[in-house]
């Protein structure tokens, strides 16, 4: 397969998140924060490059929004090029990783950073359609590709 974006910009990865004393205490309530959610998804692989979504700046911690009280999480992701045909697959991988990792009470919205893709609205609508997402996860070929993308983030 021909690569769409042959020379992507590569950025530095974040340092490991320091674990505080209060987090080690099993008795304190520890709400899920944006860094924790970012940690779940930053090592997802790009479908085209042996690089993570963080290294490509597809995902950034500042574009992860967590509202614990309303159990709402919004992720904005930025395709490396505005015509990226992999954008839906990347969004699906982020969604699946979060569905598998977070408590089911969370409502998860995965969208393209406004203005960064030519088919932004169509892709956002597709990623918000839970029936299409459910059906696609029963497609074994597609599921395998998604699992490959998120495999490294599980380590």
């Amino acid at each position: 397969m021909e690569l769409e974006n042959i020379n992507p910009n590569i950025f530095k990865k974040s340092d490991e998140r320091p674990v505080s004393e209060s987090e080690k205490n099993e008795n304190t309530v520890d709400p899920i924060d944006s860094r924790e959610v970012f940690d779940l998804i930053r090592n997802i692989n790009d479908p085209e490059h042996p690089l993570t979504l963080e290294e490509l700046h597809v995902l950034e911690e500042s574009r992860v929004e967590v509202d614990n009280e309303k159990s709402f999480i919004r992720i904005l992701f930025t395709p490396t090029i505005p015509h990226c045909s992999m954008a839906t697959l990347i969004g699906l991988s982020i969604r699946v990783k979060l569905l598998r990792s977070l408590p089911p009470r969370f409502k998860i919205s995965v969208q393209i950073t406004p203005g960064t893709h030519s088919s932004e609205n169509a892709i956002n609508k597709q990623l918000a359609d839970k029936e299409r997402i459910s059906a696609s996860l029963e497609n074994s070929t597609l599921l395998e590709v998604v699992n490959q993308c998120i495999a490294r983030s599980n380590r």
Partner: protein
Amino acid sequence: PQQLDVIQKLSAHRGKVWSVNWHPSGKVFASCGEDKTIRIYNQEKDAWVMQAVLSDGHTRTIRDIAFSNCGMFLASASFDATVSIWDKKAGTYECNSTLEGHENEVKSVAWSVSGQFLATCSRDKSVWIWDITANCEEFDCAAVLNLHTQDVKKVVWHPLEDILASSSYDNTIKIYKEDPSDNDWTCTATLTSHSSTVWGITFDKTGKRIASCSDDCTVKIWQQYEVGNAEGISTPDNEPVWKCVCTLSGFHDRSIYDISWCKLTGLIATACGDDHIRIFKEADNSTKNEPIFDLETKILAHKQDVNAVKWNPVIPGLLLSTSDDGDIKIWKFNNL
């Protein structure tokens, strides 16, 4: 008691429960979901009890189910691209026909009031109408309607006539009927006003109104105007036209997945992605051309998205709901 009380919770399914539907007797219902099973529940004394599990019909998620109006048959629609017809002739439900034709996920199935037709719709953008021979022995394709530009989410028949409505990811609702001169099915109206996917549609008891619910977080009420209507609304093709006469916005916080208009009480129930059920009632000062609907009650119904709501066809105020949380709940609305 609250306005809406939960009578019973049933937690038999594994994973999402996508749909639920009443038997026309009001004494039986069926549910289906991600676990590829159909479950049949009977009323026994004061409780609803699971009577059967049908697990050999489909290889993928079962998205929707519907009992025929005669009560003898059950149809199920699956992501495996097929529709199964189950009958109870031998005492237990057996799958006696499988309808193939859709290219991919079948999302909704519905029997016409006359018992003559079955309608199905799919992600392949088509609506199929199947002509049923006596005793449901054969289903012949009467029409393949490729009028939507995106996947078709729901098919619903008119309560009194063999007129079909469908709703789609393309944000529209379409109405179809058969031309008796040549048995051709044609689209007689396209209803546009929603700004995103129309997940659900439901007729009122007269069939002259439709309520629709959408990913745009609104409910819309549509009024039919017949040829020669008193309001003077033009009917260009000598077909009734449908106008959006009411939009309920600001009530729902997320996508609305299903809507049910009770034929007995006139109440409208909605199933929402914010885990709530809401019940709307037409106001006393409401009119045909400018209807007014008030929110009667809003209740946190499930732990996850509510996928379906269905009013009982016989017992006023009895409501079923299903959710991604794997549960089915039976509710009683007290303010009738």
